[in-house]
């Protein structure tokens, strides 16, 4: 539990030092906070039931009742985007947490203890990295069958490796430093060296990597949903909405523009924050 606390305290402290952040990162932060707030109180905001089809009103233009108009089934696009953010952001947060919880321990053990564990993990990593992660995610998700759970599993399976690599790289360079040798001479157990001396060194690079990755993960999730491998109709999800709007692209581009804009804004804000953090924490290598 201590590491989880450390992670949050680090995040908190970083946010507290924001006043000398670059304005782009602040903009990203404000955007993201707004989106998260909208997601949280979404059910109170929406004017219509996002699932309710009304064929009489299908493909209507924006109006007071339907702020963004309606889709091919006559459902309110605005309501669907607001509710759909829960799926997209929720899955992203779950995926990134799982990836960190898997990637960090494996990287620490692989880097510090080395030997056979390290060889196996790194050969696996080389194998995974040889394939584009997106193609691999499609393959795994397709193999497991279309559902949100399988989508998450496939993204976790392709993503953990980059965290393991970053953590392992840091550990390899840190473990030869004299303070780690001093800790060994001073009688620290392997567990203590890993948790007390090595873990704090990797928190900030992992934080940066994670924020930069949020954007990518949202894109993968939306893309897989677009391909029909993620959220299943009629559940609102941004990628799935894009997919639904495709047949009407030429006549009613709004069906694709609104969910596309939603994805764009979230990805943009995460990348802005990630780059700000990277510069602030001095993690040039990521």
């Amino acid at each position: 539990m201590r590491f989880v606390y450390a992670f949050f305290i680090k995040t908190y402290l970083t946010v507290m030092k924001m006043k000398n952040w670059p304005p782009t990162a602040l903009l990203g932060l404000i955007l993201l906070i707004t989106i998260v707030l909208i997601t949280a109180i979404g059910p109170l905001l929406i004017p219509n039931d996002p699932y309710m089809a009304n064929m009489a009103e299908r493909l209507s233009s924006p109006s007071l009742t339907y702020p963004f108009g309606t889709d091919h089934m006559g459902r309110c696009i605005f309501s669907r985007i607001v509710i759909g953010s829960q799926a997209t952001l929720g899955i992203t947060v779950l995926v990134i947490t799982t990836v960190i919880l898997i990637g960090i321990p494996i990287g620490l053990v692989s880097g510090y203890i080395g030997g056979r564990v390290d060889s196996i993990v790194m050969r696996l990593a080389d194998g995974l990295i040889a394939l584009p992660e997106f193609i691999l995610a499609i393959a795994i998700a397709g193999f497991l069958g279309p559902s949100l759970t399988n989508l998450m599993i496939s993204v976790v399976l392709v993503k953990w490796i980059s965290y393991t690599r970053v953590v392992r790289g840091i550990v390899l360079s840190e473990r030869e430093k004299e303070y780690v040798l001093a800790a060994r001479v001073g009688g620290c157990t392997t567990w203590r060296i890993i948790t007390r001396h090595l873990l704090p060194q990797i928190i900030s690079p992992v934080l940066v990597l994670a924020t930069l990755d949020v954007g990518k993960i949202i894109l993968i999730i939306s893309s897989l949903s677009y391909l029909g491998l993620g959220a299943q109709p009629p559940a609102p999800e941004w990628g799935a909405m894009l997919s639904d709007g495709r047949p009407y692209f030429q006549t009613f581009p709004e069906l694709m523009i609104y969910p596309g804009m939603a994805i764009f804004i979230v990805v943009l804000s995460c990348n802005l924050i990630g780059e700000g953090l990277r510069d602030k924490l001095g993690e040039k290598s990521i």
Partner: protein
Amino acid sequence: MLQVEKVSKSYRSTSVLTEVTFQMEQGESLGLIGESGSGKSTMAKLIVGLEHLDGGQITLNGLDFQQLRGAELRKARRHVQVVFQDPWASLNPKLPVWKSIIEPLENYPDVVPSFLKGVRNDKRKMAEILLEKVGLDRDFLERYPHQLSGGQRQRVGIARGIGLQPNLLICDEPTSSLDVSIQAQILNLLKELKKEFNMSYLFISHDMASVQYMCDRIAVFKQGVLVDLFLSKDLFSDTRHPYTKMLVQATVER
């Protein structure tokens, strides 16, 4: 107390140490001197069991570190501590000074050094006493390494080294990355501590003057071979190895 017998070590095909043999008595200080790459620091790592040797035997108080594994090795290490060369790298940058100092004491809860009797359960008090021993006051407890000067950091490193009151303190070029004025202070501090705790020093350096000032005996390494071993007072004797004479000459000329 320390026996080093016919120790050899090589990294891949490069031989770093070849059949090195020497002994040390309790309370004695021995200087290891030689150029960079002559195997001095490897010798130190072998003695504390941070590296494995290829041939020979090292025993400390009758314990062979190379034979020990896991918990036993950890237990044996309390008798030997190290002060490292680079005070910028030897302290964890994310820990306040006092936590670094008492870390060995936390790891060996059953060791009670004479000067820490009565406060053994009070971590901050122990750190304060140790800081005092190395000439730093309690204001330094909460500071982080980046807030200290090189000399202050090395004092912290020494405080950590003496905390367990080890039989043997290995000083791996403790002054080579410090300013000349600070070097003398650190050497004097080490000398006082030695007198106070009756520790043995294995003092590694490439500076002949500081070795001669610190040590009872001097061992000269050349490319992994122990070429000369003598009492400090015999440094200028005619019977010295030609390489030793050359090192002395180089020091004098400088």
